[in-house]
């Protein structure tokens, strides 16, 4: 025989593939979820909290009324 070949892998192929892909899948899934949480969800929650800390609904209403967007509450004045 000219140059005997190495014996190919005969068993355990699924297990090997599963091991790699399971670790990869879980890490990717958790990583992406964490990234989304800290890049999107938390800043959004903070933005809303900040906005409503100083929010005065009545003042905003008067401003909108003066701008003329309401039908039943027309701007005050002549």
């Amino acid at each position, binding site marked *: 025989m000219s140059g005997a070949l190495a014996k190919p892998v005969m068993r355990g192929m699924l297990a090997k593939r599963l091991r790699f892909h399971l670790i990869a899948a879980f890490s990717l899934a958790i990583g992406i979820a964490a990234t989304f949480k800290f890049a999107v969800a938390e800043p*959004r929650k903070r933005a809303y909290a900040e906005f409503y800390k100083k929010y005065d609904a009545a003042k905003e209403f008067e401003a909108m009324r003066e701008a003329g967007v309401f039908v039943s509450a027309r701007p005050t004045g002549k």
Partner: protein
Amino acid sequence: MFPFSALRVGSLLTRRGIIASGTFRTAHHGHEVAKQEDMSLPMYWDRTDTPLPDIPFQRKLGAEQQGLKQKEKSSWKNLTNEEKIALYRIMFNQSYAEMKKPTNEWKTVLGGIFIFIGVTGLIIWWQKVFMYPQRPHTFDENWQAMQAQRMIDMRMSPVQGFSSKWDYEKKQWKK
């Protein structure tokens, strides 16, 4: 639906196997191309995921090949390399290297894709000239400005969206 399409893919592949045997170079000959394959009998095909097809490639062996098959029955150490290759070619049509050879088919596919995108572009151009109605007046600069002002007045998306970018004190866009 899915099993049916798998069948059609299978028959496409056998056709390729048959045509490949008829048109490919190399020394072997004798595999019929003209007559219709009997699908109820085991078939030969070159597939990378089926290393050992159901039947050998050459069914009808010439005198020389039959002699070779007899020789194969004794010790294989007596076979020369050429004889071993000849025996291989009796069993198989294409080697894995030949099967996996790149085909340049991708160029055809890509070219076809671009052609059809081009045709679509021409159709859309014709539509623009001959079919589409006038642009709605609500797209005018002036109208869009008035629209944006109204959105700001209404405080649309004041937290993270549209109105959050407007500075209500200075009456301008936030820097």
